[in-house]
C-alpha cells in the first residue's frame, strides 16, 4: 500500500505540515519576539547577577522555581494520560495521545531549564557533574527529570515512526528528515509487532517515572524542615496537581489546534467531555488533598506553621490563596459538573482557570514559607521583576513555538493509530465486550448495537 493512499483519507491531518499560511509566520514572529526579549533580559541577568529579579532574603526563591514546578507539572499531561489511556485501552485516546506526548516533551525541556535560570552562577553548572551529591533532592530532580525527558521523548518518538514513514512516503519536505527519522519503517506486521511491544513496555515504565518525577519535585520542598513545606502529603499532592494542570493544558491545546487546523472531525465533543470529566475528578481530588494538607496544619496548630497558614488564609497572600481555590475548585466544578456548561467553551474557560489556579498554587507553596522565617525576622517581601515576568512569558512562548513547530513537521494526531482504530478496533472492542459481559453475546448483536 502506498503512503499516499494510506493517508488520503486523513488528508486533513497533513494540512498543517504541507500548507503554511501567513498566520503561521505571524505566530512564529510573535513568539520569537517574546523569546528574544526574554533572552535579552536573561543576558542582563547573567551579566549583572540575580539582583535584577525581585528575590531577596528571606524569599530566596521566586518565579523561576514556581515556574519550574508549574511547567514540570504540566508535563504530566502528556505521557501519563496517554500511557494510562493506552494501558486501559480506551479507544477514544487515539486522537489525543500524540498531543499529550508533545506537551510533555516540550514542557519538560522548558521546565528542566528553569533551575538553570535560577542559578546565581550558571557558568558553574558543571560542578554538578564533577562534584554533585546525590543526597541533595536537587540532584534527584536532575536525575529524574533527565530520565523522564529521555523516556517521554522516546515515548513520543516511537509512535511517531509510522507517521513519519507516511510523510516520507508522501514525499513531504524536508525529505531527509523523514528518511532519517523513519528508521526504515515499512509497516510490515513484524515491524508493527516490534514497535507495539516496545511501546507497551515503555507505557508501563513511563507511568512510575512520571509519578516519581513530580514526587521528587515535591521533595525539594518536603525534605526541608520549613513550615508549610515539611509535609508527607506533598508527593501525591504534587502529582495530583500536576495531572490536574496537565489535563487542563492538554484540553486547551486540543481546543486551540482543533480550531486552527480544523480537526473537528477527529477531536469530537465526546473527547472533550471525557477529558473534562477527568479534569473534574482531578479537581475534586486536588481539593481533597488541599483540604487534608491545610486541615492537618491547622489542627496541629504549630506556631510556625500557623504563621504561614494565616499568611495564606488571611494575610498578604490571601488574595492569591482564595483566587486559587476559586480557580482550581469552585469554577471548574461549577462548570464541569453541569452538562449544559460542559461544552467546548466552558471547558476552555475552566481549563484556563485551572492553569492559573495551579500556577497560583505553586506560588503559594513556594513564597509564603520563605516569607515567614521562623525566628524573629520581619516578613519577607517578594515582588517579581520585569525580568522574571519576561522569562515566564518567554517560557510560555517557547512552549507555543515548540508546539507550533512540531505541528509544522509532524502530524498532531496519530494517523496510523486512527487508521488502526478504523481497521481493527471495532472488532477488538466487540471481542473485549464479549469477554466482560456475563452472557454470551452474538457478534452480530454487538455490531448492530455499535452501528
Amino acid at each position: 500500500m502506498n503512503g499516499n493512499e494510506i493517508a488520503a483519507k486523513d488528508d486533513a491531518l497533513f494540512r498543517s505540515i504541507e500548507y503554511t499560511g501567513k498566520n503561521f509566520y505571524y505566530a512564529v514572529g510573535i513568539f520569537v519576539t517574546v523569546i528574544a526579549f526574554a533572552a535579552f533580559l536573561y543576558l542582563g541577568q547573567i551579566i549583572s547577577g540575580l539582583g535584577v529579579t525581585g528575590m531577596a532574603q528571606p524569599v530566596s526563591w521566586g518565579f523561576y522555581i514556581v515556574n519550574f514546578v508549574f511547567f514540570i507539572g504540566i508535563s504530566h499531561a502528556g505521557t501519563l494520560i496517554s500511557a494510562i489511556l493506552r494501558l486501559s485501552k480506551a479507544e477514544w485516546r487515539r486522537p489525543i495521545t500524540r498531543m499529550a506526548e508533545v506537551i510533555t516533551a516540550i514542557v519538560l525541556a522548558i521546565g528542566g531549564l528553569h533551575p538553570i535560570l535560577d542559578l546565581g552562577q550558571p557558568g558553574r553548572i558543571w560542578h554538578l557533574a564533577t562534584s554533585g551529591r546525590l543526597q541533595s533532592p536537587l540532584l534527584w530532580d536532575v536525575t529524574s527529570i533527565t530520565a523522564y525527558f529521555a523516556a517521554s521523548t522516546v515515548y513520543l518518538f516511537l509512535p511517531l515512526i509510522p507517521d513519519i514513514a507516511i510523510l516520507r512516503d508522501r514525499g513531504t519536505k524536508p525529505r531527509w528528515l523523514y528518511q532519517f527519522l523513519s528508521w526504515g519503517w515499512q509497516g510490515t506486521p513484524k515491524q508493527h509487532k516490534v514497535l507495539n511491544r516496545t511501546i507497551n513496555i515503555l507505557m508501563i515504565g513511563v507511568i512510575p517515572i512520571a509519578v516519581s518525577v513530580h514526587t521528587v519535585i515535591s521533595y525539594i520542598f518536603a525534605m526541608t524542615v520549613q513550615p508549610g513545606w515539611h509535609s508527607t502529603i506533598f508527593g501525591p499532592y504534587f502529582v495530583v496537581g500536576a495531572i490536574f494542570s496537565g489535563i487542563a493544558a492538554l484540553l486547551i491545546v486540543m481546543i486551540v489546534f482543533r480550531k486552527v487546523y480544523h480537526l473537528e472531525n477527529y477531536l469530537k465533543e465526546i473527547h472533550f467531555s471525557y477529558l473534562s470529566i477527568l479534569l473534574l475528578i482531578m479537581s475534586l481530588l486536588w481539593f481533597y488533598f488541599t483540604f487534608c494538607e491545610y486541615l492537618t496544619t491547622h489542627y496541629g496548630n504549630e506556631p510556625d506553621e500557623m504563621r504561614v497558614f494565616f499568611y495564606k488564609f488571611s494575610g498578604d497572600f490571601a488574595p492569591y490563596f482564595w483566587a486559587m481555590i476559586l480557580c482550581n475548585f469552585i469554577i471548574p466544578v461549577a462548570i464541569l459538573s453541569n452538562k449544559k456548561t460542559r461544552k467546548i467553551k466552558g471547558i476552555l474557560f475552566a481549563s484556563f482557570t485551572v492553569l492559573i489556579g495551579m500556577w497560583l498554587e505553586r506560588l503559594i507553596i513556594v513564597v509564603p514559607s520563605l516569607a515567614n522565617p521562623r525566628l524573629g525576622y520581619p516578613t519577607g517581601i517578594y515582588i517579581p521583576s520585569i525580568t522574571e515576568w519576561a522569562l515566564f512569558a518567554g517560557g510560555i512562548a517557547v512552549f507555543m513555538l515548540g508546539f507550533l513547530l512540531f505541528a509544522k513537521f509532524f502530524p498532531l494526531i496519530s494517523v496510523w493509530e486512527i487508521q488502526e482504530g478504523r481497521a481493527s478496533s471495532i472488532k477488538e472492542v466487540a471481542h473485549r465486550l464479549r469477554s466482560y459481559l456475563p452472557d454470551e453475546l452474538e457478534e452480530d448483536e454487538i455490531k448492530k448495537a455499535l452501528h
Partner: protein
Amino acid sequence: MPRWGMVIDLNTCTGCGECAAACKIENNVAIVGPEESDMGRTMLWMDMLTEYEGEYPNVKVRYIPRPCLHCDEPPCTRVCPVRATYLNDEGIVAQIFPQCIGCRYCMAACPYTVKSFNWYRPEWPDTMESALNPDVSARPAGIVEKCTFCIHRLQIAKEEAAVENRDLREGDYIPACAESCPTKAISFGDLDDPDTEVSRLRRTARAFRLLEELGTEPKVYYLYEVE
C-alpha cells in the same frame, strides 16, 4: 579534633551591634546600599534579632545576636547539590565560595535564615577596596555566603601553632565577633574539651539553643537573661 562552638550570653549582650560591624569589616561582607536594603538584601553574617515581650509599661526587650549556628545536623548541607556547604571535621559548617553554583537551596532550607546571597557583584567605593581584609576572599555575584566562624583565623592560628610546634590553645582562634564584643557576651572555643569556657557555660542551666526542637543541634548556645 576540636568541635568549635560559641556561647552568647543574652544577659550581658547590650545589643550594641559591634559584633555585626566587626564581622562585616573582618569578612569583607558587602554593604548593599539603601535601595537593595529596602528589598531585603542586606548582608549580615552576624545579625541581630530584637524581641519585645509584653505590653506597655511591662515590656522586656531581648537582643539576640545571630551568627550561623553551625549545626551538627545542618539542614542546609544536606540539600547542597555540589558540596559547597558541608560540615567539616571540626564542626564548622563550611561554605566554599568558589564551589557554590548559587541555587540558594541551602538558604531555603536553613530554618534560621542565616545565609545571604550576592544578588549583584559586591562593590566597594574605588579607593576602599585596598582596605579589604586580605585574609578573606571577596565573593563574586551569584553565590551564597554566610558566617564561617572566621575560618581564616583558624587557618592562620593553626599555622602559628605549628611554627611554634605546639597544639592550638584556647584563645588562639576566636572569630571577630567574639573577639570584639565589648561586653564579652560571646565566648568561643572547643565544645568537646570540658575545660573550656564554652563547655562550662553551655552546661549551665541557662543554656539554650535556637529552635532546638528541630533537632539541628546548633553549636551556638545562648544563655537566658536573668533579672
